[in-house]
Every structure is written in C-alpha cells, then in structure tokens.
C-alpha cells in the first residue's frame, strides 16, 4: 500500500489545545461547587464530552482523517449514546 501523507501540527496549536483542556478541567471543578440542581451532572458531562472531542480531533488527528474513519468514529459515538439512552427506558420509569 502506498504511504499516506502525514499531517504535522504546529506546537502552538497543540499547546493551545492543551491549555483549553486545562482551563476546562478548572471549569469542571468550579461548576461542581455551584448548586444547579439536576443540571450539575449534564453540565459536567457536557464539558467532559467537549474535552474528549478536542483530544480526538487534534491530539488523535481525527480532524484530518478520511471519511471512512470519521463515519466509523461517529457511529461509535451514536452507538454509545443509544446504549446509554435506552437504559433510561428502565431507569427513568421505575
């Protein structure tokens, strides 16, 4: 198979992502001290998802991959989302 072109990222970009991740970790800790009722967990999960997306897109180069890889990745996310949400047919109606 022919060698695929490699994508190199600048240190500035990588450092920016790292900085964003650290800031978001601080935000996660910060919001845990605020009482938002039932919204505490969704907010924490939302921030965590955003952080995961940054890691996948930039550190794991998903942003620069072909269509097959992106579709594969999105299907795994959908699968996980369906699995978790379907569990709530039970948990939410007990």
């Amino acid at each position, binding site marked *: *198979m022919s060698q695929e072109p490699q994508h190199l990222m600048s240190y500035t970009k990588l450092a920016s992502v790292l900085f964003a991740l650290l800031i978001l970790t601080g935000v996660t800790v910060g919001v845990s001290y605020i009482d938002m009722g039932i919204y505490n967990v969704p907010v924490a999960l939302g921030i965590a998802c955003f952080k995961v997306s940054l890691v996948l897109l930039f550190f794991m180069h998903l942003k620069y991959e072909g269509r*097959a890889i992106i579709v*594969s990745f999105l*299907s*795994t996310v959908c*699968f996980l989302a*369906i*699995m978790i949400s*379907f*569990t709530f*047919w*039970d*948990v*939410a*109606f*007990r």
Partner: protein
Amino acid sequence: MSETTSFFNTPSPPQLKGIWAWLLTQDHKRLAVMYLWAVMFWFGIAITIGFLIRIELMSIGPTIMGPDLYNAAFTLHGVIMIFLFVIPGIPAIFGNFILPIQIGADDVFFPKLNLLSWYLYMAGGIMALVSLFTGGGFPDTGWTFYVPFSISTSHNVPLTVLAAFTLGMSSMLTGLNFITTVHRMRIKEMGWMQIPLFTWALYATAWVQLLATPVISITLLLIIFERLFSIGLFDPDKGGDPLLYQHLFWMYSHPAVYVMILPGMGVISEIIPTFSRKAIFGYKAIVYSSMGIAIAGSLVWAHHMYTSGMSDTAIFVFSLLTFLVAIPTAVKVFSWVGTMYKASIEMTPPLLYAMVFIYLFSVGGLTGLVLGAAGTDIHVHDTHFVVAHFHFTMFGGTGFAFFAALHYWWPKMFGIMYDFKRAYIAATLATVGFMFHYVPMFILGMMGMPRRYYDYLPQFSQGNLFAGIGGILLFIGIMLMLINLLLSFRKQEKAVANPWGGVTLEWSIPSPPPLHNFVAPPTVQDYPYDFSNVLQKAAAQHSSVNTEQKESE
C-alpha cells in the same frame, strides 16, 4: 512450480523454521489453522462437560456428580462454549482463512495484530483453565456472572472474569482487522455489492465485535474492582444497582448472540447457492439484513431482563424492538429457501448441514419470539424452555453452520477430501440426537422445570430421560464427524482446487492455497454468484459423456 507451493510449506516470515514458523507466523492461513486446533480442543472439552451434565440429569438424584460440581460444570460448559468456541469459531478460523482470499487480498491488513489476537485467545483459554484449580475453587456463577452472587461467592470468579476479558480483547482485535481489511485490502475491481456474502456477514459481525465488546470488558473489570475494593457499583448493600450490571452485561452479550450467528448465516449464504448451482435469491436483501441484524440486534438486550424488576415501559419497548429483529432474520431464511427453489441441487455433506441449520435455526428463532413477548416470557423465563431455545439457535444454528463450514472449506484448507458416507451418517445421527435432546427440554420448560437445577421432581423424569438418550446420540454423531475429518489426513485423498463448483475467489486458487493466495491476478465477476460458467462447463462435460456413450454403442 514454486508459485503453487502450499502455505504449509512456505513459512512467513521466510526465515522461520519448525515450530517457530507456526508460533510467530503472520500468515492468515496458518493462524486460521492454529485457531482451528485450539478452538476444537476447547469444543471437545465443553461438549464433554455438556455430555456429563446431561448424564447427571438422566435420572433423579445424584448419579455422577454432586450439586457443587454440577454448578461448576454448567458454568464451565457455558463459559468455554460461548467465549472459546461459539464467538471465535467461525470468524477466527474461517474468517481468517477465507475473508482475505474472497476479496482478492494476500493477507489481512494487520498481520501482526492477527498473531496477537491468537495469543490473547490462548492466554484467555489458559486463564480459564488455571481458574479451575486456583483460588476458592471452580467458578460457579453461570456464564453470565450475575451480581450480587458473582461479587459474593468465595469461588474463583476474578480469574475467570479476567479470562473472559482477555478473550473479548482478542475478539475485538480480530473484528478491527476484518473491518480494515475489507476497506483497505479489497481488490480494486470489487465494489461493495460484489463482495461475497460470507465476507459481508463477517464485516457486519466485526462492527458488533468492535462496538459492543468494550462494554462487557469494562463491566467485567468493574466486577473485579467491586470484589477487591468493595466499591458498591452493583451490590445493593453498598448502594449499587444489580440491574445496572444486567444492563451492561446484556448490552454486549445480546449483540454477541449476533456475533455468534451472523458468520454462521454467512456460511450458509455461500453453501446454498454453490450446491444449488444458482445465483442466490436476494443478494442485496441478505446484505442489508446482515447489517440490519447487526444494528437492530444491538438494541434489544433488555429482553433478558423482563422478570428482573425492570420498568414496564422498558419491557414494552424492548419487547417491540425484539420483534423487529425477526424481520431481517426471516428475510435470510426466505432467501435461502428461495435459492433452492427449482435449483439443480447437488447433495453433499456441507449442504446437508446447511439444510439442517435452516430448520434448527428457524425453530430457534420462532421460539425466540415466545421469549421476546413479555407476556409469555414470564411463564417460561429461566426454565428449560430457554435452554432449548438458545441451544437451537446457538448449537443448531451456529454449531451446525460451523460443521457445514468445516465440511465446505476442509478441502480448500488442507487439500484433502473426507469420506462422504461417514459424514452423512454423522450428520444424521447428530441431527436426530439434537432433536431428541432439545425438544423434550421445550416441553420440560413449559411444564415448569427450572434451568440450572441439579435435581428435579418426578414429573420431569421422562423428559430428562429422553433428553439424555438424545444427548448420547448427538455426542456420538459429533465424535463420528470429527473422526471422519481426522481420518482424511490418513487417507490423503487429494482434493482439486474447486471440488464443489464454487464461484467465489477462494475456489479459483489451488488447494491448499499458496502463501500469497493468488498465483494469477484474481478476476472479479460482475455478480458474485454467477454460475453461468459452471453450468456451461457441466453442460459441456455432460454432452461429451453422451457422445462417448453413443460412440461406444
């Protein structure tokens, strides 16, 4: 002619010799053969344990084992059969051997990862074996490792769970390899709708393996954490939720049922057209139904939990979804039968096994609807009805498909042919034994006999006696089948490259194949099951025989 030297005589990498040429091989065909012997070893053990369980149940009271040993026996039978035979059987052996050839490739995309998968499989098997003789004794939880029992029993659960975890890893890496191989190694001329159905089935399976296996892997690790550190994830005494375990367990283990059956369906989709000498009916419908089963089958896990105390809403939703899976499954059965309609059928051992598969699997599928409907399930839940149902699907389905695959690709893998007469006798014995073994279990289940019970009430004795007799017949049939295949090594009756008149690419290369599979560039047909050349050749042979006969007259 060096190009046609078989892979048995060509080490890969080339510098390896002797046993190392096997233990460090990166050739997909050698790995398939290594998987074959390993899987058959475990199958032999598991079927013997199953046989002993059935002998124990043939009469009331203790006969050959006590209750503790009985608990361990059905756990081991389940764990070994599921994780070491049924899940890896067809993909690891026939998938590894046939998939790259069917798509015109010379190997899988990650040959080293393939070797690692084999080592993980062996490591998992060894761990399962070690777990029997260490810790607190034989694991006795059943193959489902249900909490809270699995976190409280003193028996050696952690190592068995770790074995299942390792085997899951092996299965996942094989799945990853197959997906990548189909995408990246497929010959350029082969479009998606020209891929043989066995490869399609493995592709759909690989996605389920890749997506669902991590769920069980994490769940099994959580059991170990809970046992070691008393975390309280599943144990209600510590604030945990035992139903959460069941959800997580079945999120993998129900899709795993399709990991077990889809490759089997792929095998049948190859065998039926080959021996019908006819294009498969509804090629695209079978492809879409494979993907449909993979997707819909992943959404029905909680139908194992109707009596666990789940919400009524969940019971309704999961029951509805369960019925949806029946549709793509029925599409396949209809297509196989439709292919045989008005076909030029040639009876061979693989076809006989395939036909038995269709019948047994259909019974298994239909009785699955009894269990999928919440109302009826409550009556037969955890009875012998369930045992009969899943053996009809997993053994009558996947098991018989595995036997069919063995007989179909045996000449290709080893270049030798087995004895047909013995193969027919073995298949008949196994089928008759199967029916006598499992049909009484349906009745016992309807009568209320629970599963996993060491002893039973007098009203169940007749059914258990019948089931025992059937079990003995089944065991003899399978042993005869295996002996017949092994005897082919002694007889060494050479098989030609295409003994069945198959049209997929594996039949266009020598038997056994050379190291790089193709001695000449493969030619892809517009339609993967186009038998016009085979029929023309047969007609030409027929007319030449007729001419010779007339001349001799």
